[in-house]
């Protein structure tokens, strides 16, 4: 495997008595796309959210390019988070700022870029997701697919080492899914390290290096997309796949 860019070591997460993640070990190499599937409630979102400490892991550590994000001060944490781009199911664009403003904010306030630099970079990123012509549109004037692409641009503008996607297309109308997946494929081609939670199995077959099946807070099985989809070893994986395929 290439140099690990994201590494989860013995990650545990409990909410009170509920154990949501149990001893998760995962390595994502540089330029690798790891695709995570699993039933609702299996802990996929929590695992992603532990990576940038939106959720505080109960124990274990998360290494980003070798640096332990779980063992750093609040100030250092803000800096470390710049290495992790996160894309949410619900986009979460800032409704009071236009598209370019959304992409500029953290560049200026967290990264310390000048406004001119940040704007130039924002326009470049909006161009990359095919939305340069929408740079001064407010989020409310954009379709869901466009909003999600702006959200991806917002994350990319910070030059992250790893991108985390939590069901990026689940809130979209079916005809808008393709535009977001196309951006993700382009990212993958350009060598971005990606950890993607999604139900888009077709995308996984095309773009994923590895597929991970999670259930009940543990990684049940992992392997090449073809192997997982056509010949799953664990009973739970088989049951899940036959359910989602209907």
């Amino acid at each position: 495997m290439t140099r690990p860019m994201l590494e989860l070591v013995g990650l545990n997460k409990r909410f009170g008595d509920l154990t949501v993640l149990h001893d998760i070990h995962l390595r994502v190499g540089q330029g690798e796309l790891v695709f995570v599937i699993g039933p609702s409630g299996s802990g996929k979102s929590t695992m992603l959210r532990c990576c940038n400490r939106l959720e505080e892991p109960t124990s274990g550590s998360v290494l980003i390019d070798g640096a332990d994000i779980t063992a750093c001060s609040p100030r250092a944490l803000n800096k470390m988070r710049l290495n992790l781009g996160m894309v949410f199911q619900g986009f979460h664009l800032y409704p009071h700022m236009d598209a370019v403003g959304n992409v500029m904010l953290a560049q200026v306030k967290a990264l310390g870029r000048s406004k001119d630099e940040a704007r130039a970079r924002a326009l470049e990123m909006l161009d990359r997701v095919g939305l340069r012509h929408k740079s001064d549109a407010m989020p409310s004037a954009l379709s869901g697919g466009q909003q999600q692409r702006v959200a991806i641009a917002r994350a990319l503008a910070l030059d992250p080492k790893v991108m985390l996607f939590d069901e990026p297309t689940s809130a979209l109308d079916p005809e808008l899914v393709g535009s977001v997946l196309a951006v993700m494929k382009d990212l993958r081609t350009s060598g971005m390290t990606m950890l993607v939670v999604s139900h888009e199995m077709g995308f996984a077959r095309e773009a994923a290096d590895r597929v991970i099946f999670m259930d009940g807070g543990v990684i049940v099985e992992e392997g090449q997309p073809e192997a997982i989809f056509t010949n799953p070893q664990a009973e739970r994986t088989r049951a899940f796949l036959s359910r989602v395929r209907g």
Partner: protein
Amino acid sequence: MDGLDRFLNTFFNGAIFARYLPDMLAGVWVTIWLAAAVIALGLTLGLLLACLRSYGNRVVNLCIIVFADLGRALPPLVLILIMYFGLPGLGVRLSGPLVLILVLGFVLAAFAEEIFWAGLTSVARGQWEAGRATGLGFTQTLIHVALPQAIRLAIPPLVNRVLAISKMTALGSVIGVSEILAVASTAQSFTGSAAPLTMGAIAYVIVFLPLVILTRILEHRYAWKV
């Protein structure tokens, strides 16, 4: 004298209007700067308290809540009388305008804090997460992400409260502050005519109607462009 003459003479006596116009203009000016000071103090303090509350320190928050609840529960006149007539007993003598500004400013701050806070709590959690995930600190996310959204939500209730409390500068008349109502009622007792009170009413309309119109514009402008 027929009815109309009598009415006009009672409420719109031109000679009295002319005699008290200079005093009334001075009163208008006093009302304007008192209201401006109250609004500036109340909104600034209210906003700061709401922001402070978002940090979630228990002791601090308890103090803020007590302040906000007392400020909203007590009639401003009671506070004004206590500060103006009570404090000198402790050797603290504050001028009438200062008492008025402090009391009304604090009362406005109490309401404003609750209104800003309600705005802050209704900002979606995902907004905070988006800010924090992109490396913004808590305070940065508060200032650049949450507050602008909270303020928009706060503007309609806030402008109404600002108007209501600005008009309470009329309470200055009971502690010798020569704002519009004080000028009018002094003149009324000198002349025995109701005309100065009419003048006062007209003055209030002239001062506050533009504010009412401004609030309409603001409400319209800040309505969600969703």
